[in-house]
């Protein structure tokens, strides 16, 4: 058993701290690959979690086609597109942030991460306006679904319009929850990154939270056309 502590090289050009490889790994590569595989497995669980919702959505979409077509038109396509563009931008800035980290550019990384947080908050703000626009007209999820006189005519003769909005609020709600978690995770990266913990020798946390952020984007890439465009 080797008694030496393994460290990855600590780059210069910032207040970088050395990274110790955990005791049960024999090399930095093994540690990085282990963390990465574990995180990919976590992403697999995310895919399966949202997959259940998607399967449910697809089945009711076929079941109540007319309802879904009519209700989908009530969603704000422009705001949806805006949010898509915001989220894609944040995905790009995140990728650039990871790139900066891999090249040990501390300042650059933190700037890209701030941009990502900004976009994420923008997404949530737009989401807030979309939600309140629906709530104002009494379009609530589930049994609180009670459209007012402006919206009620849209739903006349439609079978169970509440189901569409249940899916809309559940899916975008759980997705929004993931965005919120992502914001906190990236803020943590910015905080720790400022202390110089992440650099070419130890980019795993930035890399992994980046992956998380991309999967949040990936889910939105499917949610957006399903909810706003296809019906």
């Amino acid at each position, binding site marked *: 058993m080797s008694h030496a502590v393994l460290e990855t090289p600590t780059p210069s050009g910032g207040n970088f701290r050395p990274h110790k490889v955990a005791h049960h790994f024999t090399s930095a590569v093994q540690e990085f690959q282990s963390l990465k595989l574990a995180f990919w497995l976590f992403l697999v669980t995310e895919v399966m979690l949202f997959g259940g*919702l998607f399967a*449910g959505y697809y089945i009711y979409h076929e079941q109540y086609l007319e309802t879904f077509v009519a209700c989908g038109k009530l969603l704000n396509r422009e705001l949806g597109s805006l949010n898509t563009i915001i989220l894609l931008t944040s995905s790009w800035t995140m990728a650039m942030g990871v790139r900066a980290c891999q090249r040990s550019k501390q300042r650059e990384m933190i700037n890209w991460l701030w941009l990502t947080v900004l976009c994420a908050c923008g997404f949530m703000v737009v989401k807030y306006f979309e939600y309140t626009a629906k709530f104002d007209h009494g379009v609530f999820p589930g049994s609180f679904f009670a459209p007012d006189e402006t919206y009620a005519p849209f739903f006349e003769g439609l079978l*169970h319009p*509440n*189901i569409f909005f249940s899916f809309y609020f*559940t899916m975008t709600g759980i997705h929004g929850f993931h965005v919120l978690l992502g914001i906190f995770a990236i803020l943590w990266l910015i905080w720790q990154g400022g202390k110089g913990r992440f650099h070419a020798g130890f980019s795993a946390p930035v890399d992994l939270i980046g992956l998380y952020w991309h999967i949040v984007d990936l889910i939105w890439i499917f949610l957006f056309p399903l909810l706003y465009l296809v019906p």
Partner: protein
Amino acid sequence: MTTNVPVADVAIEEQPKENYLNCSKGFWSWAGTLDHKRIGVMYLIGTTMAFLTGGIFALGIRVQLWSPDGVMFTQETGLAGYNQMFTLHGVFMVFMFIIPAIPGALANFALPLMLGAKDVALPRLNLASFYLWLIGTGFAIYSILTGAVDTGWTFYTPYSIQTEQSVVSMGLAVFILGFSSIFTGMNFIVTCHKLRAPGQTWFRMPLFCWAIYATAILQVLATPVLGITVLMLAFEHLYHIGIFDPAYGGDPVLFQHFFWFYSHPAVYIMILPGMGVISEVVSVHARKPLFGYRLMAFSAISIAVISFIVWGHHMFTSGQSEFVMMAFSFLTFLVAIPTAIKEFSWVATIWKGSIALTAPMLYAMAFLVIFSIGGLTGIFLGALSTDIHLHDTYFVVAHFHAVMMGSTALAFFAGVHHWWPQIFGKMYNETLAKISACFTLVGFMVTFLPQFMMGSQGMPRRYATYLPEWQGYHQVSTIGAFILGTGFALMIGYLVHSLFAGKPARENYWGGATLDWKTATPPVHTNFDEDPVVTTDEIYDYSFLSEEKGKA
């Protein structure tokens, strides 16, 4: 954590050796430990407590069914309490005992050792998984205190939407326990991929590792779907989102699809680790290399894969499409192939072996018998036309208890007895252990064979009262349950006794050939004093034992 006391080589015999149990002391050295062995021990204690709790509920069920009109709950006093009792029995046994027991307790202890790793890949996640288990259990207990769930462990809609509010907290408990299970699975997959010792190739991994690896795949892929399902169920209960509620245009059968997409793979999450334990136990205690090693490894993986395409056989009377039912029924029979490969390979391993009738081996043999019964009756239930008759009868109850209780729980106890000296460095009273194993086998048969019989005659499950003609069967079954209970109580007794007054176990107590035995008993904190290297394909080669004997 440790104070590096310089240990003089000569003095080693005098003082107790340092191992993972005594290397640090105090509450936080356990509560905050990242050592997979200690986490395994904590899981062992926790899951055993859950087993005892679930067992008490089981005895309650059997007492109730002693007389046709019910003993504890009658028409006059109301029968709802019975529904709560079998629900809690199911939830505790499934989510808090069987699913986490072998991976959490035994695999946590043995898998890194078998692979020659110093720890699991992500020790913090491992600890988090245990705490999630605790929190989930806490939620389950909270839901009991706030008016216990009475839906059965399957939470079928629409009933689960209308019943008590505590369904929400129980759903939350299941959600959290699911994440505990996912974290365990993720950890084991990564450990198997990245942390194998030099020379420890995939086909030199002990079969226990293969079984746990296959289980972990299921845990990672299937559990999230359960997560989203119980989450939607909670929303359904709180906000009536209507997705599973026919009153709002939803389809309850969709809930069953989602539920069984998890819960069918989940029955393999329960049984595959048990199969892994049995593979190790029969090989060590029959002193023979495992028969058909590669096929055994592949069959573990193929059971995992097939389990994803057979879930509909739980829903033959739910009103799903007839075409899909036929497909599910056909696909279900595929499971029999890898399962039979396993069963026959174990038997072939024992055949002409140097069989030691030790306590773990007795448990393992009981497993082989009961698993055959459970497996073969599974074929009846997988067949579409027979299942229409047997659906929701005691035949189903007896079938899955043969697989879950008679096989997985027995495999768990086989494993506990097998690794006990290695985990604690103490040896239990073997005579008592053998008696307890016999109690378990006899108790199982007496409990469940009558259930097969009355099930085939139409006794429905989950009924608090029944027609008088089944009373004989029920009474025999209740007696059997108490025989089982006696066996388990005895077991807990001598195991706990051994911790305090047991004889110290010698190194490599059973003479195992895999890496988990090629270290100190109990292992040191970092598992191995020297980094192990695997040099041979013959991982189940016991010839070293006769050589040692020759030298002596």
